[in-house]
């Protein structure tokens, strides 16, 4: 757990209070119209566009001294940009950070939803590179806004149709579009489609920030979120033939790790906190010893590395 003092040269949460109010107003509107993209006056942040400035602004507008923040990228707390964003908030807010999913009141994420189900009262903040699910079909913003306004979503299904005709199944593995509250087609951000079902009826509040594109959208708790599909080709998620090499989990999203130059590889949980938690509880994967030898995980399992 990182503990840093709030740097007094900066506002609490970096943004001034007026800006936070503006973002909160946009968030309220987004929650009121689930899946609708609300334009907002996205500010320049000290991190680059495309590196999570939308999520950072939402977190900055929400965070208070009592909060506990978790930041993940690709599901892991220790990836470079997650470390960088966590350090940023530690510096400009002094708020406690955590890697434990259930301890966090705000979880900022890029590309994953944690494996451990979230609870009421928790907020999941997604970083969004491209909020517009129709952009690949229609480059013009004027036109896509009309398509949303009038729910003209036929073209979206053409994409799915083409995949099935060509491959026998839908060949979209991430950013798989969803229908929110039976009204708006929404991009779930580049999470793997494995995570899509977690969005449906989730007890936690889901907020989405696209800094460069200046859009905020939201899914309130317990909202219907359906991945687009056909009646005779229902939506399915990825599955793996083998369990996690470190913690033996069979229900998590696995990343492939190359272990040597000769094609050696293992599959491990992308959610590092989930994996550590399981190992702490005594679940041992087949290649944990190999991973320890490679320094990929800390030696002496049985204790979480926070402790």
């Amino acid at each position, binding site marked *: 757990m990182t503990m840093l003092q709030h740097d007094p040269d900066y506002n609490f949460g970096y943004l001034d209070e007026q800006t936070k109010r503006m973002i909160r107003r946009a968030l309220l509107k987004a929650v009121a119209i689930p899946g609708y993209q609300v334009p907002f006056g996205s500010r320049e942040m000290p991190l680059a566009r495309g590196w999570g400035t939308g999520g950072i602004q939402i977190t900055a507008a929400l965070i208070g001294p009592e909060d506990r923040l978790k930041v993940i990228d690709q599901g892991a707390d220790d990836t470079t940009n997650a470390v960088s964003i966590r350090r940023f908030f530690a510096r400009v807010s002094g708020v406690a950070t955590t890697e434990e999913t259930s301890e966090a009141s705000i979880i900022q994420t890029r590309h994953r939803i944690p494996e451990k189900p979230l609870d009421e009262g928790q907020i999941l903040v997604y970083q969004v590179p491209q909020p517009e699910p129709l952009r690949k079909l229609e480059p013009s913003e004027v036109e896509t806004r*009309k398509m949303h*306004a*009038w729910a*003209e979503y*036929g*073209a979206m*299904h*053409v994409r799915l*149709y*083409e995949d*099935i*005709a*060509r491959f026998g199944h839908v060949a979209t593995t991430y950013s798989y579009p969803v229908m929110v509250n039976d009204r708006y087609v929404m991009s779930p951000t580049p999470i793997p489609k494995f995570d899509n079902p977690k969005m449906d009826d989730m007890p936690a509040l889901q907020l989405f920030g696209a800094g460069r594109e200046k859009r905020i959208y939201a899914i309130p708790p317990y909202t219907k979120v359906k991945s687009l*599909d*056909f*009646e*005779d*080709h229902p939506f399915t998620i990825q599955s793996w033939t083998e369990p996690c090499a470190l913690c033996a989990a069979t229900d998590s999203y696995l990343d492939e790790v190359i272990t040597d130059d000769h094609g050696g590889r293992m599959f491990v949980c992308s959610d590092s906190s989930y994996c550590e938690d399981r190992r702490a509880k005594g679940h041992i994967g087949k290649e944990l010893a190999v991973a320890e030898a490679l320094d990929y995980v800390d030696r002496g399992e049985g204790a979480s590395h926070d402790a």
Partner: protein
Amino acid sequence: MRESSTPVIADPDPILIAKNVTKHYGERIGCEDVSFSLWPGEVLGIVGESGSGKSTLLRCLAGIDRPTSGEILFRHEGEPISLFNIPEPTRRKLMRTEWGIVHQNPRDGLRMDVSAGGNVGERLMDRGDRHYGKIRRSAMEWLTRVEINEDRIDDRPRQFSGGMQQRLQIARVLVPEPRLVFMDEPTGGLDVSVQARLLDLLRVLVRDLGIAAVIVTHDLAVARLLTDRLMVMKGGYVVEEGLTDQVLDDPHHAYTQLLTSAVLAA
């Protein structure tokens, strides 16, 4: 029981009414003061040379361009609605469901990087069809109807000849079974032999489906084969109109006489 047994063809109300339709581009006249009515199942031809205003008129009728003045009424659920006085979403919806446009260049009416099946199926998905198998079967049926071999269903229009692209466009327009179809030089740019086959196909489809159509063409042979009634345009004005055979066999206006003689000479 009397109402339900009334045949469509005897429908006393026009499906489309144009009232004094005028379109100007700056100081130039596109079309001037055009009025007519079109009944269900009827095919109206608009002929004239390029620049006569026939395509301008078609764009206004089809809801693409707003006329400078005048009114276009479309009968929707029994009531005439004024095309440019309804909200844009309603107009867009009508354009996708109740009428269709066959463009001269198939590229303007097709998604070139989507398969033939996807092109035809899109219209069904637009209206909410969500069963892949059924969508595919409908697409397959329509491809057969426009004489495209079933095994081409997953090919993209780019891999098709010009005539096939045009037939695919027609299938895409007709699949939602529209009540009114606009065609802009549907056989333009095709070889003569390909044209003849396409014309034959169009004639059969239009008659079988009982749809009303407005066809713009500079080709009087096309007009004679496909249309019931004809309007001759020159310089933005309608100079002559009447039953097709009548206009072509016994032209009254000097310009129409010139047009028909040019065909004879050719």
